[in-house]
């Protein structure tokens, strides 16, 4: 592998890792709090992209604003999901997961009917052109994702470790009963977690919209990856998820460059299986998956 190709691949890996991380933290967080396993997480991601399509491509709103708009929009959808699906099925993780699998179909179909179903949606690239790093060319649109992801993850860390509600959320993730005894309202926490999960999936989709095929089904490819990330990271561990996300980002990108994406996914799954065998709790998890 030549140097430029290598640098190019490294850059691609970091971009992929940033995306996986941004998507997966929400999944891990939601799972940590009252075991909300969201099959529709990929569809949140998809809807985030459609927000950009509607506001930016159709509505002519500036791209950054459209991305910001995705945050509350999808957060609200997250809240609704929590209220209408996870709360009624609380205590039965499988029921929640399967119900959200149903939600996946609902959202995909709805998106297809509302915004049409043919080729990918047309979204002009806001920042054309590419940065030249050691002979490797990386489009600005991708470069942009890296700082964006850093900021988002930083914010989340700050929220979870410095803000009262965030700490409560972590307490709740560690031990719901104890948290409840301390007078933390579980309902508030689950809602908060799903809100954040939605926001992060949404903003990831929004950031990716200009460089990804925006279709109602764009979420499904991501779902398995995201769950592998969460399992490898250790079910409910945020830090673990981030670490695993970048690991998988590198694995996928390098294998794709050298072989192909099918092998990449296979290697990813094999990686997960190995982790399960040698360390069932995942990289940073406390509880057995």
């Amino acid at each position, binding site marked *: 592998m030549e140097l430029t190709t290598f640098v190019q691949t490294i850059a691609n890996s970091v971009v992929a890792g940033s995306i996986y991380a941004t998507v997966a933290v929400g999944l891990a967080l939601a799972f940590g709090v009252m075991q909300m396993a969201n099959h529709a997480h990929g569809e949140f991601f998809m809807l985030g992209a459609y927000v950009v399509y509607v506001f930016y491509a159709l509505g002519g709103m500036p791209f950054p604003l459209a991305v910001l708009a995705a945050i509350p929009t999808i957060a609200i959808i997250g809240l609704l999901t929590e209220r209408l699906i996870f709360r009624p099925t609380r205590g039965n993780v499988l029921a929640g997961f399967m119900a959200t699998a149903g939600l996946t179909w609902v959202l995909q179909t709805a998106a297809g009917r*509302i915004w049409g179903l*043919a080729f990918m949606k047309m979204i002009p690239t806001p920042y054309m052109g590419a940065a030249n790093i050691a002979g490797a060319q990386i489009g600005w649109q991708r470069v942009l994702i890296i700082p964006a992801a850093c900021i988002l993850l930083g914010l989340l860390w700050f929220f979870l470790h410095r803000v009262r509600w965030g700490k409560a959320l972590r307490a709740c993730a560690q031990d719901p009963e104890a948290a409840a005894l301390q007078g933390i309202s579980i309902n508030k926490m689950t809602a908060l977690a799903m809100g954040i999960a939605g926001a992060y999936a949404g903003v990831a989709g929004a950031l990716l919209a200009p460089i990804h095929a925006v279709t109602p089904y764009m979420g499904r490819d991501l779902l398995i990856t995201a769950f592998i990330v969460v399992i490898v990271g250790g079910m409910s561990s945020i830090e673990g998820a981030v670490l695993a996300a970048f690991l998988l980002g590198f694995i996928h990108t390098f294998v794709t460059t050298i072989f192909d994406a099918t092998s990449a996914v296979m290697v990813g799954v094999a990686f997960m299986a190995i982790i399960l065998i040698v360390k069932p709790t995942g990289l940073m998890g406390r509880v057995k998956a």
Partner: protein
Amino acid sequence: MKKKGFLKSLVPMTTMVSLVVALSIMTVPTTQAAETINIGFLAALSGPDAGWGLPGITGNQIFIDRVNAEGGLLVGGKRYKLKMYAFDDEATGSKALQGARQLVLEHDVKFISAIGGTPADATHPFLSKKKVFYATLISTDIMPDRPYLIGGGDVTPRIDMLRPWYHKFNNPNLKRWAVTSQDETIGRTCQAWEVGSAIAEGWDVVYDKHFSLETTDFAPVVTAILATKPDVVSLNLTWPDYVTLIIEQLYLQGFKGIISGNYIDTESVLQKVPAEYMEATKSANSFPLFDDPWWGEPSWQHEFIKEWNAKYGPGAPGDVHRKITGIDWDHMIMLMVWAHGAQLAGTFDPDKILEALRAAKSIPTILGPAVMYGKEMWGIDNMVSPPIPIAEVKADCKCKRIQAHIKFEEWFEARKDTIIKVVKDKGQYFDQRK
């Protein structure tokens, strides 16, 4: 008592089954007005592959409406109205077979529009037995043991074979040809034919791989392609969505050569890269625009665009919330051919229709006069072969403009030996795919 328990648990099972059947028997077969001929549309209408199915309905419907407006299809001095029944096969074999059975057994359709691939594999034994026409877009499903399967409305792989000639003709000094497409049923076959032709035209094929359908990020794929320093990057029949993303990456990673493909959806590509770049890369493909002045005025093509917009365009009664695509007319070509065949034969008897079509010197299609061809390629003359348009992207109109309209047959006859040899080496010749 355990026995009884088992029987008891059989009770609901049996009741349910009888329920299913009872209700299915009750649903009376669709009553046939004597002079109506039913045709079927069997493709993915939901799920990720619906993008290849749903749009086809619009084109077929436009054709059907035209025919019915004239009072029906004139066959053997009698007019027959056309009626279309759609069935969603979700791109899976089992459901496709189920659909074929429903369309034939319940609606007695004479012709089925489909996409091809595994659904074709799963349905052909049944349809061959029932002697029902099954028209796929792409000709790769044609096989000698499928007498009533006709294909070729979509011009791959013929366009993929002509592009190496076209680019060589315009740039004799270029040498290095890189080609890729998604790794699936049709991709492999079409790419084999393209590689064959590229070699026949004297290109060095420096990259000949498939990217898998799981690919979501094309940066690595393009990185790998550019590592081979190609003069031409050909995308074979890479699906339009992927084409857009790959071209974007080619642009970002600084590719300066020629881009060539089966279907470049100009409008969405131009969202990602400047029109000047597309013109500079001479990006050539086969799906012409029907509002291209090249067709002349008045023309069936221009009419079609108008009708489509009137019926399905923004604000129209049947607004489909999307722009017209190649798929909208791709399916219709096959329907036109079949209808013409029936008129020539003066009957709907499939064997007579095939006979008439093969005898015909020129069959009118929306891409121009076609002939039945393909014995050397598929072992049977069931490929509908209209002249093939090659369009390039122009910066001034930010659109495709037809550059040439080539008859495939003569070109192929001159080179077939080399090409077929390569295809056989790659194990993609029809008699090797069992």
